[in-house]
């Protein structure tokens, strides 16, 4: 793909079941595209080193940190964000986070829930160590993680 200075690129993505086509600067990060161009602000930004995981989404079935991709790299992809996992009611993971007091300020929560969503897709019955390992790229400053780990276990049970 050749893009000349100042030119924009066309990006077509399916987000939470809806197709969007937008022209963006080639350097625009996927997380900014989701938040600003699509207008879904549930996906958060917590760092600039791909460390914190607040921007975690599901892209083509895999969890990705949406700050590590340019928007154009998602061209043609299917994306699910925090706004897209429950239907008319809460997803069992959301229920489990609520019932286990797995959040305080809520800022890491969308990323944490999306990473859990991926973790439980790939490993429906994780051990405590597997949960810790599966969430190691998502930082929470409030809870001490204990209730998050409980919530993931609980969600696994609800989804079986």
């Amino acid at each position, binding site marked *: 793909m050749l893009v000349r200075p100042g030119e924009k690129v066309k990006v077509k993505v399916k987000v939470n079941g809806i197709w969007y086509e937008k022209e963006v600067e080639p350097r625009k990060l996927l997380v900014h595209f989701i938040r600003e161009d699509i207008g879904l602000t549930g996906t958060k930004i917590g760092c*600039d080193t791909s460390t*914190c995981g607040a921007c975690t989404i599901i892209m083509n079935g895999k969890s990705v940190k949406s700050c590590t991709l340019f928007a154009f790299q998602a061209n043609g992809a299917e994306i699910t964000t925090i706004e897209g996992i429950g239907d008319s009611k809460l997803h069992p993971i959301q229920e489990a986070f609520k019932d286990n007091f797995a959040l305080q*300020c809520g*800022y890491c929560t969308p990323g944490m829930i999306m990473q859990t969503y991926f973790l439980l897709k790939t490993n429906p019955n994780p051990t405590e160590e597997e949960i810790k390992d599966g969430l190691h790229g998502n930082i929470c*400053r409030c809870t001490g993680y204990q*209730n998050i*780990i409980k919530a993931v276990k609980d969600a696994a049970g609800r989804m079986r």
Partner: protein
Amino acid sequence: MKKYVGQRIKRQEDPRLITGEGRYVDDLEFPGTLYLAILRSTVPHAKLNRVDVSDALKINGVVDVITGLKFKVENRPDNFPMASTELLYVGQPIAAVLSTDRYSAYDALDSIQVDYDVLPSVIDPEESLKDQKRAIEGKSNIAYKKTYSSGNPEEKISSSDVKVEEKIEINRVYPSAMEPRGILSIYQPDLLTIYASTQSPHYMRRYLLDVFGSMVKDIRVVQADVGGAFGSKLFPYAEDYIAVYSSLKTKRPVKWIATRSEDIRTTYHGRGQIHKVKFGVNKDGSLVGINDQLVIDLGAASHGTYLADISATMLPGPYKIKDIVVDVYGVYTNKTPLDQYRGAGRPEATFVIERIMDIAADEIGMDPLELRKKNIVRETPYINPFGLKYDNGDYLNLFEKAEKAFRGLEERESVLRSEGRRVGAGFSFYLEQNNFGPWESASVRVRGDGKVIVIIGASPHGQGTATGIAQIVADELGIDINDVEVVWGDTSLIGEGYGTYGSRSLTLAGNAALIASRKVKDKAIRLAAQFMRSDVQELKYDDGKVINPKSGESMSLREIAAKSMSTLGGTWNYKEEPGLEGTAYFGLDNLTFPYGSHMALVEVREDGLLNVLEYYAIDDIGTVVNPMLAEGQVMGGVLQGYGEATSEEVIYDKEGNLLTGSFAEYGILTAMEAFNIKWEYLEKGKSAAPLPAKGIGEGATIGTPPAVVRATEKALNKRITRLPMRLSSVI
């Protein structure tokens, strides 16, 4: 009848936050918003000669570039909010770009030319104390000097059986709220509306009006959803003034959101104290005298001095030491200014006194719990040597309960050690000081449909205080908790307020809400008397209803509200003022002093990292409104304290370059390091408030580091006097 207070009620705050519908500052969009990007100093100390912005102004989208902005703000440096003559630390604002989008704003920063001459920097606080090189030109490095003294410690130490000297270091940490700081300022003639990631919109309004009051009639501050703060989002920041000034100048909405790298350079760091202690202990375990030289590393501004005052006056902790002197020195360094972080002075004091207890016990060969018991305050209220009045509680009772649990940990410790494992059990006892005032406000308003809205002046941001206050109000009014909605964080909702800091919100705002509810009940009786044609004296309020015990007649709160609102038009023919509202302001005439104990059983692994095998905490925080919320504060606080003990440290090189400039370098903990925490509580030491709560927001960050350090010290059999422990250098 208490239906809700004391119960683990699920949070009312959660539905929004688990669905991505939370609205943090950066989630709010207004048409025509300009994005603010800030050029910052990359050097720790320099003379600033010239800033050339002409190339930046040529960049597509750039509307304005601001340099040299200067306001007089109490306790802030001369070069505030922007450097105009001197660069004082890495991260200090130099210029601000306003552009139509975020990317071009940051592009423009690269086109600004800064001409400066590097000056020698002062990084080590002990070097700063010598006052040879200056951190700020023309100023002594010693920004603050105060002595707290009681009795005759020198004499007591010299006549004691064993004398000990230690240097105890508590390094700088970064509060690390997951949401970086941010502000959105929306301009209208005469009125600015500000959305901010803040712990106190009311205080922010006041400090902004101090500077901008002549340029605008009012500033309404709205606290957006806040992604954590831990003390770091309370006091004025340079960017607050730059953003507000920019929106006044351009007459447009202006948004500034910190990147993490900016946040870690500019959000006030916490802790940063060195204590050189001398103490004397007698063979019977009595601690007879302490002499402490406390050096606090203020960074490039002096607003953190109060933290040293708290540390000095709380140094005696829950022990009846009478002869003590603390010489406090606040020194400038070319680092990010220092201010409060969860615990604010008490974790430092507790770490020092708990280290003294353990070290004293080791020196005389006594059990450290026995030594603590020998010195513990046995009667409350108690006036400490610096005049603090410890309110109430039974320290020994909690201590003995904790001791029982700890002896269990010690048994496991010795079993594991006999298997050759590097395991240690550590114990801490702490006294907290909280409910920093002076007061808080609440307004309880019954709507025509019987729903109750509670407005509080406190500004919670993750603690779940709204749920706790809904429990208090629902109990007091005898109504369903789902009919109570608690709102906060907007200066246009309530006359005045303070905010959420110092573990105060549930006690101060909660009691204001309780008293306001009582006013509503009183008013409900008077209105019902009119509606039921009864004497006020015949009626009483019980379980959500006004009852006439004689006639058996009653009206529910909902019915009274509905009757007041039943018609539109007509006249009001009752001899009582309409409306079912109560507003109350509540303050306490002393701070509250909860206390507790933390215990850890840790193992030092081959690679030098720690495993926490067991962790147990017990606290007495007065009445616990919602044990689930309180436990959440403990669990989160323990992991923060554990981070402070094991991995978190803001590190500068010798020249003053920040080596921990992002989350990739700063040692924030992940789920991999997490462990299970068992928590219990007592409710003996009740505060003087009608609902006698105290506060638990900071207790765990106070109790954890000394327990973890003691456990590690025992596992390694090496004395540790530094936070974080840097085990690689200890092993």
